[in-house]
């Protein structure tokens, strides 16, 4: 069973207030593929990402991670394979220290403490924040928090990495470091972003969402062109 690909088949999702956020989304991201999810605010990017590890379940349609359909029952299995970095790092960091936050996932996987420590050290080293492991999250800068949030997912060694606007609020240097870091991740990546340059640098393929529908699925360069025309149409 391979966990490394993700497939959406006719996924619809409506929020309890009736807002239809996804309207028949279908695509497949194969093993090792990096796909950028682009779209205007409110186009359904975050909702789509939340479907990847069962935090939201489709109203109709199906999401598969490898051979496993994402359901309530399979959610815990899927979450070991799909690591998700949220839009706001503060939503992810709540433990007393950075170390505990990064160790949260591995510990939930019931790994022995020696292995947890090894993974935490490696993840913090990867994001260049070994020295802050004993600090509390609120003592870190915005960029550092973002990096710790990413480390907290990397420590789970996911097969698929899902990131929701990871470069938001990062300075140029931190953003470059993030791109370098993500470049070292050789499995599947789904990246929702407004940072078109980052999308171009990291992802050969992009999907453009507009009002819950995929309106373009092609090379990132081409999709960005379509994206600009959508933006222009909206302005007019």
């Amino acid at each position, binding site marked *: 069973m391979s966990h490394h690909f993700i497939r959406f088949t006719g996924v619809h999702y409506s929020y309890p207030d009736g807002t239809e956020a996804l309207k028949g989304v279908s695509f497949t991201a194969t093993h090792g593929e990096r796909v950028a999810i682009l779209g205007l605010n409110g186009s359904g990017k975050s909702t789509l990402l939340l479907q990847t590890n069962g935090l939201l379940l489709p109203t109709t349609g199906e999401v598969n991670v490898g051979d496993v359909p994402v359901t309530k029952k399979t959610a815990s299995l899927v979450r070991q394979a799909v*690591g*998700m970095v949220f839009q706001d790092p*503060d939503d*992810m960091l*709540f433990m*007393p220290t950075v170390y505990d936050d990064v160790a949260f996932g591995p*510990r939930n996987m019931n790994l022995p403490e020696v292995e947890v420590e090894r993974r935490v050290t490696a993840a913090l080293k990867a994001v260049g924040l070994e020295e802050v492991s004993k600090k509390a999250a609120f003592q870190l800068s915005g960029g550092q928090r973002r990096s710790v949030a990413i480390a907290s*997912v990397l420590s789970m060694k996911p097969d698929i990495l899902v990131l929701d606007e990871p470069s938001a609020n990062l300075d140029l240097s931190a953003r470059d470091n993030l791109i370098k870091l993500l470049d070292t991740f050789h499995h599947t990546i789904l990246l929702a972003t407004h940072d078109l340059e980052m999308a171009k640098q990291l992802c050969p393929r992009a999907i453009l969402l507009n009002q819950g529908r995929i309106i373009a699925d092609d090379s990132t360069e081409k999709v960005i062109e379509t994206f600009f025309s959508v933006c222009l149409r909206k302005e007019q």
Partner: protein
Amino acid sequence: MAKTEKILYSLTKIDKGRRTVVPTVVMLILTILYLVAVLSVPLHMPQKLIWLTAYPIFLSELCGIGYLKIFVRSLWILPILIFIGIFNPFIDTAPAFTIGNVTVNRGWVSLFSILLRGIIAFQSVLILVSTSGIIETFNSLRKIGCPAVLVTQLQLTYRYIAVIIEESLTIKRACAARGFGKRSYPLKLWSRLIGQLLVKSTHRATKIHLAMLARGFNGVLPTGNAVYWTSTSWLWLFGGIVFIAILRFTDFTSLLLHLTGNFNR
């Protein structure tokens, strides 16, 4: 630094505690036993409680915290204790004893008993948290067999204190940024701010919960570091139990009276 921010920083100190000679699990077991000993003293026998004060005094000095520090901090709980016992002197008016011409009723005795009991019980918990830290204390609770769900609830409640403080700090900063030095606001605005704080905290807690689920949270927070039990732990435990038992069951008052009586003769 703002007061709210200071509280946030002080929480990190409470998280970690300070390492002492007494192992965390032993400290936890002894604190539980001590609380049982304190609560088992009848309300109208405060003289027995006085001897039990030796435990927090001895332990705080042994752990290098200093009793004065613990005593001052334990006074925070005084208003609550007064609120609990304040009506006793007016309800239980039966005479307890007489000093000279003044008759002291049982209500005053029970009020004194409540105050002393509450303060020394709180002091023992303060010592536990100061030495072991909240996180280690929760881990130890799990190790001694406390249900994981209950400990997780306690841990999350504790963690959400930090979330609420962070949110209140954000609101406070937002007010200050547009308040032009204004320090007081009408009551109506305060009630709105508090409502907003609750809404924001709940919203953030929901998002945190989602992020926890995404990283495999299944209802039980992982404890992490192992709590070690060594041969010296047994010694500390045995010594502590004997010490508490002596304080609880020896009638020092009668012994003292007996000794002074013999001495006078």
